[in-house]
């Protein structure tokens, strides 16, 4: 590309655009296994260190090396951390997708690309910054074998110069990312500098995008939801963990292993205050959890949809024999193998009723990494208090992406192990039956092996209030009704929704999990663009609390926003609502595997509200690849 070309483009591209400060998204298109994740994290953390609210989302293939992957970084002075559908700044490193990536950009966007790809020939309405990455990396990395990995550390340097990131902060971010690997730090720092120097010597700024220092991120941390949940489990005093590797939940247990090895080894003996077992499959994982919980341990597993399907029979056993179990479901796209590395909220109905017969389970639904941490702890409390499985419904977006958050606070309350029979309680009761409801809340007292209290024979077959085998119709009904009573008690103990009631609003939004961020942003868009006021009910648990009915009654129309095709949460609601209330419910559904974005919600709601909506594009940048299996 000649300097004249640049000048021509400058006129076209920047003429219609104002300076855009701290409010745009960067998409990096690379090949997985090329070290780009480290580079992206350095970029992300640099923006955070600049004091600018930021989020990062990885869209990666189900593959280890060689396939296209996209990473989106969104800087937002208004704290919008949902995915933004439009890409403002593209870094095109992958020859395979570069052309399509460039063609889907909005006019006025900017592109840093690998020079030999000659992408500037494709469009005249973009700003192009060609960088000869191979030449630059050769100069800073003498070892040819390492060049493939180091090459990707050049683009953060280039972007830093173009966007105005502080190179000192970028070096700090690099240090954080690479830790004690001194040799790697030196090599990558040289690559960062090479990128910066090249940009400084070669480019004049033509795009409108700038990062300027703010003071919005002091004390904030960056963490993946899976790691946050792991910390929560450790603080909850988990002692037995059984798991089977599956994307996107593996890193939950892997983080847990590393935290536990560091913080849960007895100083005096050097021995572990925990057992973590990689089981032979998800069936065995839950079996071990049930055995451990039955024997009194705080126990958990983590999995994704296919694992949940396999756990069905055991989930019913835990429900019916009444053993606690904490099950993290980091949801991915189904059905079947589906899109293993893409996000969804598609396991709701499956988890709510997992197993045959009349079975139903408690689900709690974190929206943020902070809630992954706190709800992990709540899950153990609920599981032990209600002696039943508790599903923590996360998703890939929450579990595997890095999120900005306030630092987590140390738990202030001791743990509650629920109704364990004691000598004193037994004396007070006179007699004890394992499944006898003595308090009227449906929750019986339990004993655990080795506690030298009266034993019982736990079983998945029919049993009476004393825990004896029984096929008697009255015993069966009495027990099932008590289990129902227990579920009703849970309704008043699960996490309450977070409700923002707007007295001017006729429209109410119900969202949960990671849909929260796009929902909040969409509410702002609706208010600012079309003066549509909304109330917002952020659901956090199943069974639903009474607040749901109150919220529905206060509004004319309710949009249930969810990331699945079949409106699963709305269906769960309909099971409990009167026909009049059911008719108020509408759906906003997003299920293409990418995290939900505000514009999609806004457009969908406006269309259903009777507004004219022009669909801008059906193509989603960085959507994914075909073939390659």
């Amino acid at each position, binding site marked *: 590309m000649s300097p004249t070309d640049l000048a021509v483009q400058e006129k076209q591209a920047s003429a219609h655009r104002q300076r855009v400060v701290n409010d745009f998204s960067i998409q990096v298109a690379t090949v997985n296994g090329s070290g780009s994740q480290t580079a992206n994290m350095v970029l992300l953390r640099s923006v955070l260190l600049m004091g600018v609210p930021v989020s990062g989302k990885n869209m990666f293939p189900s593959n280890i090396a060689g396939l296209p992957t996209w990473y989106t970084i969104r800087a937002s002075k208004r704290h919008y951390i949902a995915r933004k559908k439009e890409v403002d700044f593209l870094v095109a490193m992958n020859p395979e997708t570069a052309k399509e990536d460039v063609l889907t950009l909005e006019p006025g966007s900017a592109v840093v690309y690998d020079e030999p790809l000659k992408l500037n020939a494709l469009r005249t309405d973009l700003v192009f910054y060609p960088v000869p990455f191979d030449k630059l990396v050769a100069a800073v990395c003498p070892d040819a074998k390492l060049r493939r990995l180091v090459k990707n550390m050049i683009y953060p340097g280039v972007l830093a110069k173009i966007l105005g990131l502080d190179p000192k902060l970028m070096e700090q971010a690099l240090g954080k990312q690479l830790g004690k690997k001194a040799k790697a730090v030196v090599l990558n720092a040289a690559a960062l500098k090479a990128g910066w120097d090249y940009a400084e010597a070669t480019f004049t700024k033509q795009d409108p995008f700038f990062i300027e220092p703010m003071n919005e991120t002091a004390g904030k941390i960056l963490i993946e939801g899976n790691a946050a949940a792991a910390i929560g489990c450790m603080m909850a005093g988990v002692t037995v963990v059984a798991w089977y590797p599956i994307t996107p939940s593996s890193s939950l247990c892997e983080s847990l292993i590393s935290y536990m090895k560091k913080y849960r080894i007895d100083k005096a003996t050097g021995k572990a205050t925990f057992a973590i077992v990689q089981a032979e499959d998800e069936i065995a994982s839950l*079996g071990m959890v049930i*055995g451990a919980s039955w024997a009194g341990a705080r126990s958990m597993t983590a999995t994704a949809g296919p694992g949940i399907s396999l756990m069905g029979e055991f989930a019913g056993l835990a429900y019916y024999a009444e053993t606690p179990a904490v099950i993290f479901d980091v949801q991915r796209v189904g059905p079947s193998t589906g899109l293993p590395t893409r996000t969804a909220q598609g396991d709701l109905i499956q988890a709510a009723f997992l197993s045959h017969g009349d079975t139903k389970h408690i689900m709690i639904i974190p929206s943020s990494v902070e809630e992954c941490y706190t709800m992990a702890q709540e899950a153990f409390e609920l599981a032990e208090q209600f002696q039943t499985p508790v599903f923590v419904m996360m998703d890939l977006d929450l579990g595997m992406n890095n999120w900005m958050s306030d630092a987590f606070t140390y738990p202030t309350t001791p743990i509650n192990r629920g109704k364990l029979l004691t000598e004193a309680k037994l004396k007070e009761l006179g007699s004890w039956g394992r499944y006898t409801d003595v308090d009227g809340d449906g929750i019986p007292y339990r004993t655990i092996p080795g506690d030298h209290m009266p034993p019982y024979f736990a079983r998945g077959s029919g049993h009476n209030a004393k825990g004896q085998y029984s096929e008697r119709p009255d015993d069966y009904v009495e027990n099932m009704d008590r289990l129902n009573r227990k579920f009703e008690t849970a309704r008043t103990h699960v996490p309450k929704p977070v409700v923002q009631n707007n007295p001017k609003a006729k429209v109410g939004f119900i969202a949960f999990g990671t849909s929260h961020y796009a929902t909040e942003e969409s509410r702002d868009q609706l208010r600012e663009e079309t003066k549509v006021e909304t109330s917002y009910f952020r659901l956090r648990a199943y069974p639903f609390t009474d607040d749901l009915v109150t919220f529905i009654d206060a509004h004319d129309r309710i949009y249930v926003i969810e990331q699945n095709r079949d409106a699963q949460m709305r269906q769960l609601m309909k099971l409990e609502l009167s026909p009049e209330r059911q008719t108020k419910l509408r759906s906003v559904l997003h299920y293409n595997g990418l995290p939900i974005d505000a514009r999609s919600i806004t457009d969908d709601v406006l269309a259903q509200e009777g507004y004219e909506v022009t669909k801008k594009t059906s193509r989603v940048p960085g959507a994914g690849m075909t073939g390659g299996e």
Partner: protein
Amino acid sequence: MATPVKVNRIGLEPQVYKGSKTTLCAGCGHNAISERIIDAFYEMGVDPRQVVKLSGIGCSSKSPAYFLGGSHGFNAVHGRMPSVGTGAMLANNKLIAIGVSGDGDTGAIGIGQFVHLMRRNLPIIYIIEDNGCYGLTKGQFSPTADLGSKLKTGIVNDLPPIDTCALAIELGATFVARSFSGDKKQLLSLLKAALAHRGTVMLDVISPCVTFNDHEGSTKSYAYVKDHDDPLEEVSFVPFFEDITVDYEPGSTQEVTMHDGSKLYLKKIEEDYDATDKINALRRLHETARRGEFATGIIYIEPDRDDFLTQLNIVDEPLATLPLERVRPGKEALDEIMEGLR
């Protein structure tokens, strides 16, 4: 003066070790096994309050209700008892686990969990009450049915059997034995030795199904098993708490010291048999199977290998009851983690 009540070394009466009344068929081999379990736990002076009884689904899996009524029990789902037992032992390493399975529960639906249980060498006594058929669903073949064995209906089994003992040895179990529900003496010795072992005990007990698999043409009938029982050795067990010395001719008997100091004496019937030699054990199993016989007794034993809980380096106290201060790291730990994420 009343006659003194018979008690064991921890002062408990035999009655304490009994369970509820069996609901299995009269003459079922499983009932004989339950009785030997009661005897063994009584004679070894095991505290029933420390025992967990585990099972899957099937006739065999009902039997834990019929022994050790003073112990906790868990009748889990079909073929998945090993994982439940594993979880229980992880939670509390002071428990003594006895799992009862059947040949279908182990060899068919549960073969996956069985395989991995054997690999882990979890401390558990795993008993297969092996009758070669599904009793509770009226007599279909199970995977341990021998080639050529005939059902009551005349159907002949044309698939090779799974030899659970050979499989267990191959996979790493450290105490593998086979017995016959009708051989009271051998079975009792094996069960007592099993209680002295720390690691996985895999005990396959041929236990004829009187209702569906006790006819001519079946290789798991009482008559057939009696005729084809091929004991490898005479098993004598001397628990650590009994001061008995056994004299034997050098070379005639193999002496094995168990984890708790108990002694196992294996008086050789077949001269060259060495129960600590894995390859030899597998060869012998194949040879006897080829002859249509059952090699019984201790087939393989490895008393010293670390069990699963030792390998996991778990603290000495049960994980289940560790106090809060030992399972919740202090605030400084959380602060350190948070600092690392800024």
